[in-house]
């Protein structure tokens, strides 16, 4: 085969030459070329190697169905492996490399697999590599894995950016060929909001390679005219380079626009790709039809192509696939292609027609071999001839390119993505789109209408009807005038008998006809089994060319109609879509939103180290000069709080204002402890259960007035608690007069804890906050000096005399500054969540490290909070189940290392001394652990079987995962101030 650029013709702009490289070889093409057309123009026929046998392969198609011409585009961090050369728009500076070959494309050692092919048939690996057993992991699998895949992913950070966008329209037209353009035009003129999406970089579809005239103009010129009118309509959006990849519920479509995949140096101001979610009232598929390859011996030799693709390269790109082109056809289309080539001056050596008779006209002087079959091809890495069999006689026909035309299959992929299966049509000898209702209809070749006039009419008429359904009035307009067209009929030919060498069905995955036979013999005759057993249709082209022939061959072997075989399932994505496009901007630090406390800047000012806590950044500790480890800082903060006073940001707690005459009743039903009679001005610790009786969340409830409560939740569960309350109020008890809203973001909240807390805080308020006037668990609104409306709570998460002060978020930083100033004389320090955690651990207070969703109030030592007297609350009934009350449940205990120098670590399990580790002997686990600077040794909270009866017992703290084992004594979980003297000081 010798491919070359025709002296004239085509849509490529011959005044704009573009240089590019293939496997390092510098080549030239023109603007308007695809990489494939430019490679062909440079006579680069061999472009890749197949997956299994590493056979030399060339370009087969001129579009997204391409199985062979896969290249790696770009280099380094901008590598795009497995890119189909047939859809790449050529640009200056493009670099492409062939794949799956070593050491080179021309000489590939992997081709030895072809010699072993009798042993490597479909499913061979399921039967072998098992002896001896150890060798699978050590030898066979690594070897198989090394052979896997085609292109190489770089897996380095992608320097480019992506974005996503919603779009809404009355009518989405998918495909910008004759049917799609006419549909968009009629709908656009009628005033519908229209989006027309086409995967190509130039709108026009088959018009771009059409040889006939439309309205007296060349077909491409006609397309250009329609596009120009569409561009002038404000209600029409044209999206070229945009592939609609999926059809989802409610007529939402996913599409990906390649915004600047066609430039060597993308602009930083634009995304490389953009994913569109298109919500369409109606949609039209004008996705065309796919020409079928023919399955004959040697059909994978470079130079064997789809006939239509040879036509496209000649007419659209001005490139001839060969000096002497033969056509193998089972229908009229092959003749049409031959005539078009002949008209372009390309020599057509012969037409091999599988049919015994046909009325189609061959170009003058071209030999037609009827009832002919190709049984083999000649040449090494490029075609040099074909072996044609007719009536038992073989003949060698010289040619350097061969076009296959096995009839047509409508492209119905999108219409079948939501459960409906394509329907076999005897008339079309193809699977047609199912009826999926009014919202999505199929027109043109995708609808089995194969003439140009028919496509133009189908698009126009269907769009007009759909416009009317949506209440738009489309004015009648004359249809464009076309020439008389040939009959596009064909005979179904699934397999060409008499193959002298492998007859491939799926080129990329090297599935040949015999593999399907083997699958059938072994009981894998169901189309899904055949696919999975042979891998036919599972390559990067998803069987766009091969599936129909696989179905036909299976049908033939099983002696049934293709209708009975059916198809495999069509699923997104129509063509592959990059991770990057689908992820959009949600990556790295933008992977999830970031929440910062109103005291974030205050904490930063004091040198805080921050830690992630869900979406929040929380201050973890505040290192000071000279402190070498985080532990030093945390120990200092803890000791300072215990001895003096500290300020901690607790703004991230969930905060909910609850109002209404039934607010108390509502909360009484939400919490397991009593809330009904909570006095105004008081706060209470509350425990919420799930309906299954396990602890959901804890927090405080403060009654600010008769019908106004203020509820706090843990940071982690703030959203979940709010949703739970919504559910209870709206669904369970809609008649309670209660309203609530989140005020988490409205309040800055700070804990002021330590023996000096009152002295510090008193400086900010006029009201008396002494033990008598404002005792433990007091809660009320209070103005700060200067008039800021605040709320003060006498609650403590440290066991110290402590207050929590809430001020409007915007004042948070200023008030915190003032407290630090007021506390200077009392050695106030800022402390973070690490110190907070040590303080609460010392005091035996609990967090979600303990409340892990499997803990009852009694497990946590809070059984007294469970109010059996209340008639009803969430979780009451199921709490009585045996499993939740069994005596051997794990209960909260404290642990102290017997050897005080040893540490205990969270996540360790507990064993009785002398017992062997086993699931049966497992006694419990450590939920929280840390060093207590007050006690001078490590302490821990743990859940231990029947733990409260076992104080004083020694247990093994078993952390085999980190090879760490300690003996600890079981004790009460309150390590510091069990009498609460400091708390109530």
């Amino acid at each position, binding site marked *: 085969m010798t491919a070359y650029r025709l002296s004239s013709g085509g849509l490529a702009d011959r005044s704009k030459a573009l240089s590019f490289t293939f496997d390092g070889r510098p080549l030239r093409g023109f603007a308007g070329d695809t990489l494939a057309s430019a490679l062909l123009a440079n006579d680069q026929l061999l472009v890749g190697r197949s997956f299994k046998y590493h056979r030399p392969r060339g370009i087969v198609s001129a579009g997204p169905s391409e199985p062979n011409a896969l290249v790696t585009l770009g280099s380094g961090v901008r590598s795009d492996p*497995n890119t189909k050369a047939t859809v790449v728009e050529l640009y200056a500076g493009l670099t492409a490399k062939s794949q799956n070959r070593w050491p080179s494309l021309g000489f590939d050692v992997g081709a030895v697999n072809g010699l072993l092919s009798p042993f490597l*048939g479909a499913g061979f690996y399921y039967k072998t590599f098992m002896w001896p057993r150890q060798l699978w992991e050590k030898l066979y699998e690594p070897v198989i894995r090394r052979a896997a895949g085609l292109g190489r992913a770089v897996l380095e950070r*992608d320097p480019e950016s992506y974005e996503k966008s919603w779009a809404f329209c009355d009518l989405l037209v998918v495909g910008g060929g004759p049917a799609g353009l006419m549909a968009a035009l009629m709908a656009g003129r009628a005033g519908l909001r229209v989006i027309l999406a086409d995967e190509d970089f130039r709108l026009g579809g088959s018009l771009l390679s059409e040889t006939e005239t439309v309205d007296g103009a060349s077909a491409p010129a006609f397309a250009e005219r329609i596009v120009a009118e569409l561009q002038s309509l404000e209600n029409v959006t044209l999206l070229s380079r945009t592939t609609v990849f999926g059809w989802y519920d409610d007529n939402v479509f996913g599409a990906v626009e390649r915004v600047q995949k066609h430039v060597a140096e993308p602009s930083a101001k634009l995304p490389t790709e953009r994913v569109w979610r298109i919500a369409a009232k109606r949609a039209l598929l004008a996705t065309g039809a796919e020409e079928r390859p023919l399955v004959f011996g040697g059909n994978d030799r470079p130079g064997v192509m789809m006939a239509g693709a040879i036509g496209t390269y000649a007419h659209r790109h001005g490139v001839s696939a060969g000096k002497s082109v033969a056509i193998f056809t089972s229908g009229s289309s092959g003749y049409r292609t031959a005539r078009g080539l002949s008209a372009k001056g390309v020599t057509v050596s012969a037409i091999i027609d599988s049919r015994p008779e046909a009325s189609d006209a061959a170009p003058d002087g071209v030999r037609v071999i009827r009832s002919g079959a190709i049984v083999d091809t000649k040449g090494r890495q490029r075609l040099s001839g074909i072996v044609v069999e007719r009536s038992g006689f073989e003949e060698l026909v010289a040619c350097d390119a061969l076009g296959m035309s096995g009839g047509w299959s409508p492209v119905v992929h999108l219409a079948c993505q939501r459960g409906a299966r394509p329907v076999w049509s005897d008339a079309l000898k193809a699977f047609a789109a199912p009826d999926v209702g009014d919202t999505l209809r199929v027109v043109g070749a995708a609808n089995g209408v194969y003439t140009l006039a028919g496509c133009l009419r189908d698009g126009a008429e269907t769009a007009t009807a759909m416009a009317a359904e949506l209440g738009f009035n489309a004015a009648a307009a004359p249809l464009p005038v076309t020439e008389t067209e040939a009959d596009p009929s064909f005979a179904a030919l699934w397999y060409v008998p008499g193959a002298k060498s492998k007859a491939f069905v799926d080129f990329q995955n090297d599935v040949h006809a015999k593999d399907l036979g083997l699958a059938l013999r072994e009981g894998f005759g169901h189309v899904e089994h055949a696919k999975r057993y042979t891998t036919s249709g599972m390559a990067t082209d998803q069987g766009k060319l091969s599936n129909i022939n696989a179905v036909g061959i299976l049908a033939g072997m099983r002696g049934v109609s293709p209708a009975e075989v059916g198809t495999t399932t069509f699923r997104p994505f129509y063509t592959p879509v990059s991770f990057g496009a689908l992820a959009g901007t949600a990556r790295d630090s933008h*992977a999830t939103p970031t929440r910062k406390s109103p005291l974030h800047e205050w904490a930063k000012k004091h040198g805080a180290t921050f830690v992630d806590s869900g979406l929040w950044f929380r201050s973890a500790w505040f290192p000071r000069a000279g402190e070498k480890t985080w532990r030093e800082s945390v120990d200092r903060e803890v000791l300072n709080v215990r001895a003096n006073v500290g300020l901690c940001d607790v703004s991230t707690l969930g905060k909910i204002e609850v109002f209404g005459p039934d607010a108390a009743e509502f909360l009484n039903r939400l919490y397991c402890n009593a809330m009904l009679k909570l006095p105004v001005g008081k706060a209470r610790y509350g425990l919420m259960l799930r309906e299954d009786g396990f602890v959901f969340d804890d927090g405080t409830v403060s009654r600010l007035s008769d019908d106004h409560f203020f509820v706090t939740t843990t940071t982690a569960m703030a959203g979940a608690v709010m949703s739970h309350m919504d559910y209870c109020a709206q669904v369970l008890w809609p008649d309670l007069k209660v309203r609530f809203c989140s005020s988490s973001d409205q309040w800055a909240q700070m804990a002021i804890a330590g023996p000096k807390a009152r002295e510090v805080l008193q400086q900010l308020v006029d009201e008396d906050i002494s033990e008598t006037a404002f005792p433990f668990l007091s809660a009320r609104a209070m103005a700060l000096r200067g008039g800021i409306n605040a709320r003060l709570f006498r609650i403590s998460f440290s066991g110290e005399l402590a207050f929590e002060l809430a001020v409007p978020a915007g004042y948070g930083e200023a008030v915190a500054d003032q407290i630090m100033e007021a506390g200077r004389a009392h050695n106030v320090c800022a402390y973070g969540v690490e110190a907070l955690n040590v303080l609460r651990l010392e005091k035996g207070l609990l967090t979600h490290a303990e409340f892990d969703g499997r803990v009852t109030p009694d497990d946590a030592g809070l059984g007294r909070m469970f109010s059996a007297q209340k008639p009803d609350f969430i979780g009451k009934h199921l709490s009585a189940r045996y499993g939740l009350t069994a005596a051997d449940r794990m209960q909260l205990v404290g642990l102290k290392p017997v050897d005080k120098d040893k540490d205990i670590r969270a996540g360790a399990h507990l064993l009785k001394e002398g017992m062997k580790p*086993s699931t049966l002997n497992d006694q419990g686990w450590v939920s929280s652990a840390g060093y207590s600077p007050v006690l001078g040794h490590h302490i821990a909270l743990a859940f231990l079987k029947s733990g409260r009866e076992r104080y004083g017992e020694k247990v093994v703290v078993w952390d085999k995962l980190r090879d760490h084992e300690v003996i600890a004594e079981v004790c009460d979980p309150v390590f510091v101030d069990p009498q609460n003297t400091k708390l109530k000081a």
Partner: protein
Amino acid sequence: MRYSAFSIVRNALSGNLNWKPQWRQPQPKSHYDVIIVGGGGHGLSTAYYLAKEFGVKNVAVLEKGYLGSGNVGRNTTIVRSNYMLPGNESFYEFSMKLWEGLEQDLNYNVMLSQRGVIMLYHSDAQRDAYVRRGNTMWMEGVSAELIEREQLKKMIPFLNYDHARYPILGGLLQRRAGTARHDAVAWGYARGADQHGVDIIEHCEVTGIRRENGVVTGVETSKGFIGCGKLALAAAGNSSRVGEMADLKLPLESHVLQAFVTEGLKPCIDHVIVYGGGHFYISQSDKGGLVFGAEIDGYSSYAQRGNLATAEHVMEEGVSMIPGLSRVRVLRAWGGVMDMSMDGSPIIDRTSIDNLYLNCGWCYGGFKATPASGYCFAHLIARNDTHPVARALRLDRFARGYAVDEAGAGPQPNLH
């Protein structure tokens, strides 16, 4: 036909024309000792072990579609036994051990690849939870390793160490865990069961369960009535529907879980990696495609297809964990319908009807459980006694207050 080096050479030399069907296509008999509803991985493995290990050979497996058309053919192929709760860990480790001998046992290469599963942690709290999990594993005798950040960087250099929203601090590794070729598991069990005399009847939909005097006497099917001594349901995804035929009310919701595969790539990801900042998991198939998934779509569904928003979210998590995935193209998405149970753990048990047995509620964990599920279910059916490793997985655990709630999320299926 036994597969051996000899049989492969012999067949290759004779044009591979003499291979026999891997399982028969029998017509149903009028009566079986045991009928299993569901010809997926669990139904087939149950039949295999019933016949091979428990001597119950007069068995039929009824499958409404083609063999393996349920979740065994639409998952992310991960096998592991790295659970936190003892009730799960014992069961899944039993499964893991069966996996390790499966190819020899079945004489079928299911391509078990013990490449290691690593679950990343991103905070101290998450590390502590993984430590607890790792120690549960060690309690069961299962080796686990805590991989710290610096070691992890050497092991898996392409993770997002520098710019992740949630810093990657380390991971919990189970080296014995990995992947297996999912379809081959169904086929291997089918062939094994068939060789032991089990009738596998495809395209035979059960439409009713006939009961007389409170016991099941057989099933109405699209191929007529078939009598049985015992009836075993293994129809995950559709358990509620099949159970309804016997008036069973089950603690299940059906949900769709999407999975994805990329274009084939040269080997680049050597482990199964699980993102702790979300729910994303990924591995590379022996054929080169990256196989991955994350959470369920969230609404109850019997449709084997998912929605775009969830798909996009999965990609977001993928790129967040491995920035270099950005340019890799996703080839195909599919959806599996799963029984989501009320505690996220499966159910293998008898029912209120004496000779009706139930295997359901596999949530995300069905594929890896295939061998143990079949073995324990067969044990239960044959001996009317729960296998020791499946004791925590009984149906009455909800009524008794013994939920096996690995996520600690409570009785809301879409949270597990």
